């Protein structure tokens, strides 16, 4: 537990020192929100949540890429793959929750006739999914530019594809449209349930993928055999 907490603490310190990145992370969802606030309040909530997911995924992508150089060394000095992944995820989830709070308050006071609990739920699941999604991208695409372009494609598709279509369900933030509809349009709980199942599935699968990837990448190689000092 100490090892995971230390990784989380150091990851948080690293993120906190990238001040310009933090400002951009904070402003990105706001621009999404303001882009549709004038003509479609409900859509502005959905866009805000997508912006939040995009911002946190990007932060996770860059955090994952930056950590690649030091992780083998940390593994060698006693950390296991799951210490590193869970510590980093804990830091990113903390950042995501901190970013979400002012936006929840914004919606709480700027929008009326909305299910606020459902909005908080979208934000929570977005944070939980976005962090492992960004880390998974950084694991699959070690170069940051490629990862950023894939992220851009995913978010672009998320905005353009018809959420009612089956194929849109393979996108990681599809749940936000479903729960968003439940929150804004006061539809039946079927939307909420589908969104919850989708979000939970993606959160579990992505987190498992990232842990598995880290365990394989940082495994003890078969040619190396340790014994206790005599």
């Amino acid at each position: 537990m100490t090892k995971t907490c230390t990784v989380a603490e150091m990851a948080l310190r690293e993120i906190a020192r990238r001040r310009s990145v933090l400002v951009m992370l904070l402003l990105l969802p706001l621009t999404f929100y303001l882009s549709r606030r004038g003509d479609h309040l409900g859509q502005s909530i959905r866009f805000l949540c997508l912006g939040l997911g995009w911002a946190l995924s990007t932060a996770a992508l860059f955090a994952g890429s930056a950590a690649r150089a030091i992780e083998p060394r940390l593994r060698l000095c006693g950390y296991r793959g799951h210490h590193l992944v869970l510590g980093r995820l804990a830091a990113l989830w903390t950042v995501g929750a901190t970013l979400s709070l002012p936006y929840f308050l914004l919606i709480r006071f700027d929008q009326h006739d909305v299910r606020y609990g459902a909005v908080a739920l979208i934000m929570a699941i977005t944070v939980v999914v976005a962090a492992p999604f960004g880390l998974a991208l950084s694991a699959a695409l070690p170069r940051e530019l490629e990862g950023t372009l894939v992220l851009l494609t995913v978010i672009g598709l998320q905005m353009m594809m018809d959420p009612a279509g089956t194929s849109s369900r393979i996108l990681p933030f599809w749940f936000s449209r479903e729960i968003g509809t439940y929150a804004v349009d006061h539809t039946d709980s079927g939307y909420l349930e589908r969104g919850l199942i989708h979000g939970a599935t993606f959160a579990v699968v992505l987190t498992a993928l990232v842990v598995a990837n880290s365990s394989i990448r940082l495994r003890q190689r078969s040619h190396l055999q340790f014994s206790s000092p005599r």
Partner: protein
Amino acid sequence: MNPQVWLAALAGELSRHGIGPDLAGHVVAEAAAHLRDSGEAPLSAFGPPAAYAAAVADSVGGPDLRPPRRVPGAVRLNVRGVTKRYRRRPVLTGVDLTVRAGEIAAVVGANGCGKSTFLRICAGLASPDRGKVYVNGTVGYCPQDSGTCGFLTPEEHFVLIGAGRGMPRTAALRTGRANAAALDWSPVSATQARHLSGGTRQKLNLIMARMGEPDVLLLDEPYQGFDRGTYLDFWHEVWRWRDAGKAIVVVTHLLNQLDRVDIVLDLTSTKERVA
């Protein structure tokens, strides 16, 4: 430069030139007495401390920098038949190396002959095509570069690595600071690693490798960017670690008379010989 600062610098330089504490103390006392009696400025009387220390070392017949050979201990690192190819080009072919506790092995060779690859294989960070590496104990690894987090301070690095080794925060900080002092470095707590000079970042890299007192130290050209004084300090530290029973492997392409080691593995011809 005032006399006290000059005398302190002279003491350090004499130590770096392998002058023993008795003789060094005598030389410093003589120089202090001369400065006091003559009232001269030290730079005009003796010149720079490094040059004066070098002159003293020459006048006493040159230092024997080789620490006394001790009987090596148990085998700590045993590399057998390591072979590695990159895109069909053989980089390492059947490399063997045995390093015991209390021994230093230097891995030398031309650029691109696989020195860093060999060390990464020893550390378990890369897989060979064939061969085995047996490690008796724990491993510390100092990469050639990029082994630090740019946005963390040196002390945060000590805590991070120390936690991996199971060290409490205060013990990790204490150990890190002590190892930094041995390399003539006092980390400033607010400075992030990305703002350190190349040589200072390498000192941090080296200190991180030493955290937790690993039994086997794998050092990949750890002195890049060091000034001459720190370079000498580094080798004195390496000898001290050897005397403490560590098995040390140093990748280098600069093996001069100062770098006294027990084993030389020349990867250009992949031949191991005893120094």
